[in-house]
């Protein structure tokens, strides 16, 4: 009985620790300026269905300070790799470095909720070692399901006190009135959350609206 009680309180304490740490990690995001120390390592989450095209648009004007760029794509995505390579070859920055990593897809279009949870957990198995190895300063993403496990891994680095990873989310131009499912999940834990229509800014006060970015 005593053992069970001890075990339960240990689990509860651990949960409480995680929640408090998560709160602190998310709260301190705005003050964290990795750019003052030099280069910013970026983990870019690409994805089919327009996500890759949109995120490359966003990267287009970002300077060489955002180096290296680690692109993550789902293993079933065939189109994105070519787009990324074309984009990077056009950037023509002499000291520019980038890599492309693949992880299992966390959600296919039309996949059911329950099986999405299972496949997201599976994707997390691959995301954790990837993010722990790369230790990016920021994760830049705009909505494909692959975002979730990668952002969770980034948050975990912060929770464990290893490194603060900024979560930068830019909602797709397609979203005018409602956030995507990924957007809704990441809204509370992201450090910078961009929307591209004023109607969304009005509904989500934490969001940043700079007009149409792509």
């Amino acid at each position: 009985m005593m053992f069970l009680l001890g075990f339960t309180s240990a689990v509860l304490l651990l949960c409480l620790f995680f929640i408090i740490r998560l709160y602190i990690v998310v709260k301190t995001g705005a003050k964290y300026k990795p750019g003052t120390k030099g280069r910013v390592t970026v983990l870019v989450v690409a994805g089919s269905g327009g996500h890759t095209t949109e995120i490359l648009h966003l990267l287009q004007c970002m300077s060489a300070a955002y180096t290296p760029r680690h692109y993550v794509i789902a293993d079933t995505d065939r189109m994105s790799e070519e787009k990324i390579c074309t984009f990077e070859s056009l950037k023509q920055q002499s000291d520019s470095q980038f890599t492309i990593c693949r992880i299992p897809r966390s959600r296919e279009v039309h996949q059911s909720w329950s099986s999405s949870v299972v496949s997201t957990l599976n994707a997390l198995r691959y995301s954790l070692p990837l993010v722990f190895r790369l230790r990016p300063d920021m994760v830049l993403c705009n909505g494909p399901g692959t975002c979730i496990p990668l952002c969770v891994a980034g948050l975990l680095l912060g929770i464990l006190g290893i490194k603060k990873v900024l979560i930068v989310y830019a909602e797709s131009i397609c979203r005018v009135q409602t956030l995507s499912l990924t957007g809704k999940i990441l809204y509370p834990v992201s450090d910078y959350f961009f929307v591209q229509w004023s109607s969304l800014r009005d509904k989500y006060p934490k969001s940043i609206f700079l007009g149409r970015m792509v």
Partner: protein
Amino acid sequence: MKTVFVTVGTTSFDELIESITSSEATQALKARGYEHLVLQVGRGSVFPAADSCPHIRLEAFRFKNSIAEDISQADLVISHAGAGSCLEALGAGKSLLVVVNDKLMDNHQLELAKQLHIDSHLLYCTCSTLTETLRTMDLSVLQPFPPGQPKKFADFMDKALGIK
């Protein structure tokens, strides 16, 4: 020769291909001075033969790596409501008529097409109103579509992260 380019993107939209190649629709196009119709039919099961329309010169293909050239050569683009197709046509500065597939319910891509219609960047109809729209549409009401500003995003991030 004035050209119309019809695109259905990566999916299929047989109803649009059937409607635009109907004799009423091609006559309406002809009456507006369009003489050349290029169709990108995607995975659709309707693939019109080149000689199937007596009023107009017709070409059809399923997919290309890039439809940028077809868009640039067109005077009018008729597209499904897909965001990629809409943004590509508007980005090229073309007059755009979006035909909504009303058999696809709850398609979140419609959100963007509807908003762009409210902002007068494109015209909007369904297959059943296509011929009527082609007859009566006024392309002069369309407003130019300014390019998006990724520079603002980059500047914001530079400042937020302390990059000089």
